[in-house]
C-alpha cells in the first residue's frame, strides 16, 4: 500500500495526539509512523504522521482538520516523491 505522510501543525494541547490517533484508527487507516516535536516559542506542536493506505488521504485530511486544536495539514505522497527524485 502507498505510504502517505501528513505534516501537521497543532496547538500544544494535552489531548491533541490522542484525538489525532483516534481519528486515524476510526477512519480505518493503518498508522505507519508518528513523531512529534514541541515548538515552545509558538506554543505549537509539529507532528509528522505516516499511514499506509489505499483510501482517500484527502478525506482523512478533512476529518483531521475537524479537530479543534489542529491548525494546518499538508500531505506528502512519499511514493510520488521517490519517483520525482
Amino acid at each position, binding site marked *: 500500500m502507498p505510504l502517505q505522510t501528513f505534516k501537521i501543525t497543532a496547538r500544544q494541547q*494535552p*489531548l491533541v495526539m*490522542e484525538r489525532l490517533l*483516534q481519528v486515524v484508527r*476510526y477512519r480505518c487507516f493503518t498508522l505507519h509512523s508518528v513523531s512529534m516535536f514541541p515548538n515552545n516559542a509558538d506554543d505549537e506542536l509539529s507532528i509528522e504522521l505516516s499511514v499506509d493506505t489505499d483510501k482517500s488521504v484527502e*478525506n482523512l485530511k478533512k*476529518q483531521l*482538520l*475537524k479537530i*479543534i486544536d489542529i491548525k494546518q495539514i499538508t500531505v506528502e505522497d512519499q511514493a510520488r516523491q521517490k519517483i520525482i527524485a
Partner: protein
Amino acid sequence: MTGAELVLKILEQHGVDSMFGYPGGAIMPIYDAIYDSPIKHYLCRHEQGAAFSAVGYARASKKVGVCLATSGPGATNLITGLADAMSDSVPVVAITGQVSTKAMGSDAFQEVDIIGLSLAVTKHCVQISSVDELPAAIEEAFAIALSGRMGPVLIDIPKDIQLAATDLDYTKPETCDDLDAQQVSSLLEQAKQLLAAAQKPILYVGGGVGMANAVTEVRDFINATGIPTVSTLKGLGAVNPEQSNYLGMLGMHGTKAANIAVQQCDLLIAVGARFDDRVTGKIAEFAKHAKVIHFDIDQAEINKVRVADVAVLGNLAANINVLATSLAIKPWQEHCQQMAQDFAWRYDHPGSKIFAPALLKTMSDLMPNSSVVTTDVGQHQMWAAQHVAIHQPENFLSSGGQGAMGFGLPAAIGAQVSRPDDTVIAISGDGSFMMNVQELGTLKRYNIPVKIVLIDNSRLGMVRQWQQLFFQERYSETDLSDNPDFVMLARAFDIKAQEITDKQQIQSALTEMLAHDGPYLLHVRIDEMDNVWPLVPPETANESMLESVKS
C-alpha cells in the same frame, strides 16, 4: 466566588435557562451553586436521560442543551447521549465533575478517564486544570458546539477547581462574525448549468437544512423550480408535507415513489444530507445515473460516500437561492406525481386490531401542526416517519445517526421544557420505552405534560421483523410478552393512562389524550407480527423494495 459559582454565572450569561442532570460526589460544589442559581435544573433519573433531554431541548429550541453528571459512572452514563448528539449534529454542552486534581490518576473512587472515553463522541472535550481556565473553556465550548456543523462538547472539572476561590468575574464577550467568505460563485455557476441541463432532477433534503436555518430558502427553491423532492429521516419537516412535488422519505423504509424517483433521476441535489447507508442502500447502485450537487457546511462530508460533480460548502440559505429558477421539467414532475398517487399509503386494514399506521395518521390529523413529535427506535419510529405530517424540522426529534433506543421519552421532556406552550408527543415502542422508563419520575416530579403513545407488540419488533425476513424466523431474544402492565406502571407515577386494543377506540382515545392538561400514557396494543413496509433489504439497491410478506 468559587469555581462552581463562576460556572453557573457563565452559563447564565450564555442564556442557559434550563439544564438536565444528576448530582453526585465530584460535582457537589456545582450542585451547591445551583441551589442559588436562577437556572432551572431538572433532576432526571439517569444521566442518559439527562443527556437525551439536553438533546431534545436543543433540537426543539435551536439553543444549546446543557447536561451535568458526576465523575465515574455518572459521566459514562452520558456517553450514549453524546454519541447521539455527535451523529445528529446537536449542540450540547456536557459538564462532568472529576475527582480532585491531587487524586487524579490514582484510580480514586468514581474516577474514570471521561476525556479518553468521550474523544470519539464529542466534537471537542477539555479537562480544566485551573480555575482561571474556566471562562475561556466554557466560552469556547459554546462557540464550538454552535459553529459550523454543530455538535457536543464536554467539559470535565475536578472537584477542587469547583471549590477554588477566584476573583475572576465574567462578562460575555461580544460575538464576532466568524463566517468565512466563501468563494462559491463559480461553483454555483457550474451547479446552475447542471440544473439547467437536467431533465429529471431531484432535491434530497437532509437534517442540515433545519440546522442551517434554511427552511424558508429551500421551500422557496422548491416553489420556484417545482423540483420533485425527497427527505431523510432528519430532514422531515424541512419540506412542507402538503407540497405537491414532495415524495416523502427515501431510504430503507422510504416511500416507493421517493426511492424510485431517486433511482431514475439524472441530477441529485443534496442539501444538508450525508448519503447515510440507511438512505442509499447499496451505494454503488444509488442514483447511479445521476450527477450530484452537494451543499453542506462540513467539508468532511464532501466526497466521503458519494463523489459530487459540484460541491458547495458554506451558507446553504444564501447559496440555494442562487439556483432558484423555473425549470422545464413538466414530464418528470407529472411522472413523479403519478408515482406519488399510485403508491400512496393505504390505511384499510382487515379485522378489529389496531393498525399502527392508521393510528398515527389519525394522531397526525388531530394534533396541532406546531406539535413536537419524538420517537424511540424501531418499527414505531419508521411508522411515525411515514405517517405523521411534520411541518418544521424542529418538530420531529428522532435518534437518526445512532438509532438510540430510550431516546423518545427524555427527548420529549427536553422539548417540552423548551416549548411549554406546544403539544409534545413521545411515540415509543415497548422495547425502547423500558430503556429509559425511569424518566416517568421526571414527568411526575415536574408535571411535564408530555403525551406518550406506547405502541406495544410485545416484541422487539424491528429485530423480530428482520429475523422473520432474513434469519429464517429464528426469533432469538425478541419476545417481550412478559412486559409489565404499562397502564399500572404509569399510574404508579401518578400519570393518567389508558389502554386501547380495538381500532374503534382510536379516535376517542387520542382526543382524550390530547385534551388532557398533564402527562398521559396511551398504551396501544397491536399485532405482534405487523411489519413496516416497504423495506429495502440491506446492501440492496433502493428500487428492490419488499412490500409485504405474509406473517
